[in-house]
Structures are given as structure tokens and as C-alpha cells.
């Protein structure tokens, strides 16, 4: 089938001009402050990201008490590590097991737990994932290289409210004696969305 080209080149530069004009207009009007904008960007580029979530997961793997707190009151347990606030005000953690695999999506927009995972990747925000995660989760997982046997129940969580979901992936069996720090390094972003598994050779 022919695939009609989509002229991104000219489109994006037009969009770029629109954004620049809007930003300078809003600054001129005094509605936004340039330094605050830079601060916002810097925060999400350097401080908030999936390394936060990885710390949560690693702690849950090494501290049974923390894990049980995390599963019963995720917001408080995550805040105790210093991760809280915008787009993570009300957290729920979903535990993967040998029989249950959880997968998170937002079909209506792109809700995502910012304090623990940062800003969502492009694929999470785009139509293919949002369209198919709910109706064809196993096929979607295959595109991420994850094949689950039929006896594993696949649970998809559609983030339609302000509740934000974080997946607690299964700990690789050969990492039981690993330190929390070492474990945090192998926890991937995708494993906390549910589109990946954690391996011990990451």
C-alpha cells in the first residue's frame, strides 16, 4: 500500500514559530516568567525521571515492610523517598507476579506518574499505543519484545482519572543478594509502565 508522506519538516518549523511567538507574548504580558520556564524545564530534564521510580522499586524488593506499605498506600510510601506532587498526587502501585502482568495506558490523553517516571516517552503519547493497549495488550507487549504465556493474566490499567499507576515489576530471581543501589540500576522505565520486564544483565 502506498504510504502518503507527511510533511513534518515544514510543519514543525511553523509550529516552532508559533511557540516562540506565544512564549514572548506571554512574557511581554507578564503572565509567565522566563526564569520560571527555564526552571520547569531543568526540573524535568535533570531531577524528575525514571531513576526516581527505580529507587522505589529497588526499595520494595529489598524491604518487605516498605513493599507492603507501597502496595497499601503508594502515595505516602513514595513520598517518603522524596517523590511527590504534580501528576503523582494520588498513586497506586500494581504488583506483577508469575501469574499477573500489569500494563498502564491512558487512552484518552497521556496521563503518566511524573514524580516517579518523569515525562512520558513519545510512544506512550501516540495513537498506536493508546489505541491498542486496551484491546490487544499481548500483541502490544510483543512489539516491546515481551511474550507472556496464556496462563499469565494481563491486566491493563486505563488512567482515566487523576490516579496514577506505577507497576512493581518482578525481581529477577538471581538478584536476591543484590544491594538496593545495584537493583535500582536494572529497573527500566518500561518495566514500571508494564511494557518491559526487568532482566539481571541490564
Amino acid at each position: 500500500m502506498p504510504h502518503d508522506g507527511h510533511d513534518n519538516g515544514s510543519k514543525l518549523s511553523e509550529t516552532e514559530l508559533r511557540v516562540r511567538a506565544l512564549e514572548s507574548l506571554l512574557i511581554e504580558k507578564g503572565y509567565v516568567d522566563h526564569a520560571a520556564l527555564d526552571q520547569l524545564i531543568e526540573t524535568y530534564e535533570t531531577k524528575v525521571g525514571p531513576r526516581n521510580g527505580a529507587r522505589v522499586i529497588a526499595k520494595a524488593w529489598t524491604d518487605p515492610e516498605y513493599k507492603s506499605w507501597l502496595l497499601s498506600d503508594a502515595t505516602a510510601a513514595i513520598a517518603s523517598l522524596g517523590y511527590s506532587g504534580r501528576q503523582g498526587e494520588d498513586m497506586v502501585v500494581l504488583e506483577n507476579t508469575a501469574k499477573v502482568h500489569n500494563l498502564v495506558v491512558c487512552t484518552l490523553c497521556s496521563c503518566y506518574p511524573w514524580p516517579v517516571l518523569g515525562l512520558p516517552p513519545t510512544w506512550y503519547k501516540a495513537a498506536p499505543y493508546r489505541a491498542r493497549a486496551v484491546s490487544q495488550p499481548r500483541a502490544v507487549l510483543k512489539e516491546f519484545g515481551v511474550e507472556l504465556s496464556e496462563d499469565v493474566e494481563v491486566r491493563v490499567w486505563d488512567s482515566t482519572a487523576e490516579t496514577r499507576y506505577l507497576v512493581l515489576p518482578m525481581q529477577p530471581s538471581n538478584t536476591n543478594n543484590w544491594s538496593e543501589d545495584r537493583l535500582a540500576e536494572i529497573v527500566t522505565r518500561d518495566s514500571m509502565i508494564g511494557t518491559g520486564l526487568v532482566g539481571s544483565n541490564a
Partner: protein
Amino acid sequence: MNGAHDLGGSHGHGPINPDPNEPLFSQEWERRCFAVTLAMGFTGQWNIDQARFARETMRPGKYLETTYYEHWLHGLESLLLDRKLISQSELKSKKAQNTPKTLSRILKAEDVAPALEKGGSARRQEVGNAKFSIGDFVITKNIHPANHTRLPRYVRGRRGKIDRIHGVFVFPDTNSAGLSEKPQWLYAVRFEGEELWGEDAEPNSCTYVDLWDDYLEQA
């Protein structure tokens, strides 16, 4: 609204193509669009449901042909114009022409960290008991409002089971219309794959959707 944003279960969008090496922002304008949207959000001139609805009003084909931050840009421009914070002519000329409105809150650099940490929970005080209990079966209403709703099309008129009671939360359908927060109980409702997709469901799969009292009826 039954808009192009309501993507669950739709076909024809092609492969997912995750890029493991993508940067947080792929273009400089995305970075600026992100920051400007957040900063304007902090001024309190609209709520999050109004922001979402503004993005959904993009022309359906255009919505599908553009990316996330282009949706944000459309939404932000729409809200700014609608609230008369800027004018069409200012937008076109790229120059301020009218006296700015006085905003009670403007985000300064030193406010960024505390403001982000504070966030803005949609949770409200619980009054009385939840209408449904864990394990109850419910049927979602078959509604088709022209306004904003968080009940996706694929899950309307379907039978599910209350899995979790999240608490009392702002109701987006009224809040997006600027009517009232109408706080009510919110649940995670579990729908079996077959209930949603019939014979086309994948084996041993289910979907949990966060739904408010106003979307639900006793099964």
C-alpha cells in the same frame, strides 16, 4: 465528547515503534511549549479538565496527524483566547496590544519546586460511604455527551466489577464545563476482555478503568 482523542480499541494507527534513545524533548519548541503550558496552568485561569477538553477540541483529523505537544499548543492557545488573556490579533502580530489582565498567581522561578511538589490533588473529603462496594457488579452508562467526559467509548454500556475504591474525587464532566467540582466516589472497575471486545478479545486479559459514581449503575 466522542472525539479523535478517545482512541481505545481503534485500528489502523500502525506500529508503536518505541525509540529507546529518544531525548526527553525532541525539539526545542516542545521544551518551551511544555514549560509555558505548565506556567500558565499555575495561574489558575483554568482547571486540568478544562485544559484536557481544550486539547480535545482540535479538529479530529488534525489531532491524529499531530503530536502531543502540538495538542498542548492548540489547547493553550484556545484557552488563552477564550479567557481573553490574549487576542487573535496579538497572536497573529506576535506583539502585545492590549493591557494584560491581572492574574492573582504568576509562577516565579523560586516557586517552581514548591509548586510542583505541592501539585494539586483532585481528591476531596469523603462524605458518607461509597455507593458501591468491592466485588459489586456495575454497568457503565451509555452516554454520548458533546462535552468532556472521562468515560471512554469502548467501555460504555459494559459490565464490570468494582476492584478498588480510590476515594472521593472531582468529577471531570462538570468540572471541565466550569459548572462545579461535583466530587464523588471513584473506583477502579475491572472489565473482562471478552466483555469489551467479544470474540476478538485476547485470552486471559482484562482492563481496569477509573470510573466515578455518575458513570455507573448497579448491574
